[in-house]
């Protein structure tokens, strides 16, 4: 029996089982999040090298196949002391050395990822002064319930190598059957590329090279319309707590191209994207017992919002352990949702008015539509956007309600098509409007 040792009659056994970590902890996390989690460790390695702002020359390479999974980086390697005392512990130990601004923080990502992918793993890591290798068969390890250690297969601490020769390679074999079929598929490879592109958008911008089966993941650009008439909001907030360092939050809200798949909020924690194109209650859309915002609809497909949260103490950030969502119970989340809800209102108001404008008579003009059309080429990358407390858009015109009447009639489909071609009209409504306008101009005084 796996009981973690004998207990007395007056004691209750609460010892963990290995199955809990191998089978249970891996249930609630998707494969892609696990792989992205492993790449986080590489980026944290780069941070340990003091390379926060320039990642040029650093590479994280992921290789997928139906037989094995491999990730290799040249990001400094893992010190044997870190491996011995902390990196393989289940859960972050309180005495674990802090890495300000890091992505890894829960002490669960790497182990969970390895167990999620396969039943055997080998880690080879080289720093400038040391090297080690760990080779684990998970099933063998699981069979020994009281042994909560791994053994170094090899360990040297007196070598000397240049920084560009350092790095870590993790090879996972004996893949879980479903994982094997996923990793072997090209469609999955593309999905992973897209996730890595979004998740590490900032690191890619800073020069990191990410490869998936040798193909380079392109840098993603996030941009907002910034013209003389339409300007995005950009504000900086600081979330303070009774103790510890504050979270610095840079918020952007505005519009871009009408793309339902890309619309919504993007939330970054320490440069890692944790939520992309979110249009759910999580980011304030839809009814809530506070500020009520509209439910997402495609008329808001131009909406884009970005929240970039940075904190020296990563455990304060409102991300969940799989880093693909938000921890809604955290105080930082409550503050974030408050601020993004407030920021959204003017953008949503504008997009609603833009949509309503199509109901006006064409003679009145469409100032908002004109402003959007003329701004289409004025997309600014986030870093080029000035601070501005509110989204700006053309002021409401001093409107006089146009007394509109609707005309409704049918013509033969053939005649309609001929007229449409002649007029260059895009739809039947335009045919009606243009023919009526023509009659007014030609026949009415």
């Amino acid at each position, binding site marked *: 029996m796996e009981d973690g040792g004998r207990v007395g009659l007056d004691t209750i056994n609460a010892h963990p089982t290995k199955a809990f970590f191998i089978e249970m902890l891996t249930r609630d996390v998707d494969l892609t999040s696990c792989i992205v989690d492993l790449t986080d460790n590489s980026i944290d390695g780069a941070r340990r090298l003091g390379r926060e702002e320039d990642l040029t020359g650093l590479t994280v390479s992921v290789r997928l196949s139906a037989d094995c999974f491999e990730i290799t980086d040249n990001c400094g390697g893992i010190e044997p002391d870190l491996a011995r005392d902390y990196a393989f512990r289940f859960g972050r130990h309180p005495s674990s050395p802090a890495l300000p601004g890091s992505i890894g923080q829960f002490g669960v990502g790497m182990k969970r990822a390895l167990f999620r992918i396969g039943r055997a793993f080998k880690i080879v890591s080289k720093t400038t002064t040391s090297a080690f290798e760990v080779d684990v068969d998970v099933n063998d390890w699981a069979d020994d319930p009281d042994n909560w250690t791994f053994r170094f297969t090899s360990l040297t601490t007196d070598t000397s190598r240049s920084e560009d020769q350092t790095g870590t390679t993790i090879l996972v074999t004996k893949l879980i059957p479903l994982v094997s079929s996923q990793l072997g598929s090209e469609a999955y490879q593309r999905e992973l590329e897209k996730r890595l592109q979004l998740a590490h958008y900032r690191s890619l911008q800073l020069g990191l090279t990410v490869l998936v089966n040798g193909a380079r993941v392109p840098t993603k650009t996030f941009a907002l319309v910034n013209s003389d008439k339409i300007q995005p909001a950009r504000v900086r907030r600081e979330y303070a707590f*009774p103790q510890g360092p504050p979270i610095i939050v840079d918020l952007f809200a505005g519009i871009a191209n009408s793309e339902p798949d890309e619309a919504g909020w993007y939330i970054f924690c320490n440069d890692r994207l944790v939520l992309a194109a979110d249009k759910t209650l999580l980011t304030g859309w839809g*009814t809530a017992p*506070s500020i009520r915002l509209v439910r997402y609809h495609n008329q808001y497909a131009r909406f884009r919002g970005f929240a970039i949260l940075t904190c020296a103490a990563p455990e304060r950030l409102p991300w969940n352990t799989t880093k693909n969502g938000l921890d809604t119970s955290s105080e930082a989340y*409550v503050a974030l949702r*408050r601020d993004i809800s*407030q920021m959204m209102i003017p953008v949503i108001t504008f997009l609603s008015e833009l949509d309503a404008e199509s109901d006006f008579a064409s003679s009145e003009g469409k100032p908002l539509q004109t402003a959007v059309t003329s701004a289409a080429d004025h997309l600014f990358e986030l870093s080029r956007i000035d601070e501005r407390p509110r989204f700006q858009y053309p002021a409401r015109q001093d409107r006089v309600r146009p007394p509109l009447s609707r005309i409704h009639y049918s013509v033969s489909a053939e005649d309609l098509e001929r007229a449409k071609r002649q007029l260059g009209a895009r739809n039947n409504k335009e045919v009606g409007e243009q023919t009526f306008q023509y009659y007014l101009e030609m026949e009415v005084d």
Partner: protein
Amino acid sequence: MAASGRRIDYRFRPAKCVERRLLCELFRAVVETKAPDTYCYAGFGSFYFEDFIMVHRELGISRMVSIEADVYNKRRYVFNRPFRCVDVKPGKSTAVLPLLEWARPMILWLDYEAPLMEYILSDVAYATQRAAKGSVLVVSVNAETPQVVAKDGQEANDARFEEIRSQMGGNYLPERRREETLAGWGVADLYTGVLDGLVQNAVVERNAGKGLEGLASAFRIANFRYKDGAKMLTGGWFIGDVGMAEGELRSLFGCCTALRLAGEGAYEIEVPNLTGNEVQYLNQRLPCASGKLPRLPGVPAEDVARYVELYRYYPRYAQVVN
């Protein structure tokens, strides 16, 4: 706001007029703690701007924003504004609120005529989150019992509850309140509870990430009910430091007739219907230090008592004969 601007002339709604003056007394208590020009007043001026006239004359506030949902008649609202300092901003309240100067302390009176709709709750949450310390937030809504026909087998009260739920959205209305009676002032009781819950929730959101400095609370200071035609409800909150004690609140608003702190119940404004002669007769005998009420021939003593309580706020009308 728009439609009502055509329907009702606010100047002849006596209870509303009394409410306005009672609110002004509460506003004065906070405005006098700072210079009037630090404050901004925002409200729904409609065509008559009665509240703006009062606030500018009585309190000296010159930064004023009137929110007008009737976007097609801006020119008429601008023509009717009583002072140059009133900035008419056309648009729905939800769209215009973000345009206000929230860094300043604010007297904000969201004087809706609608029942407590979802957008109103959202506006109140927004204002509570953003109003600077020292601000007063007031919201007025129609608290009539919804006129709905119960479906077969449905209790009338249940049908009313469902109607209110559809107006304010399920997320704001706790299911546990379904059993409360919605006749008489029952809707006002329900609304009061929902508004208090909403405001306290908005305070929690407001304070998130503010550390130990800058934490605020919303203290209830007003809870009016009256009926000029429809039953109306007005709630008011003062945004102050989180540690503010009840004693401090009482001393800040000590002189205010209608101060109602949390848990104190509503202040019902009942304006007796008196003639000009009767009003003049009573005024000459007020205030009555003895506590003995004057008598008026044919007028019930309780009407006289109500008048004595409200005489300083009672509207004065003059009939013009032509």
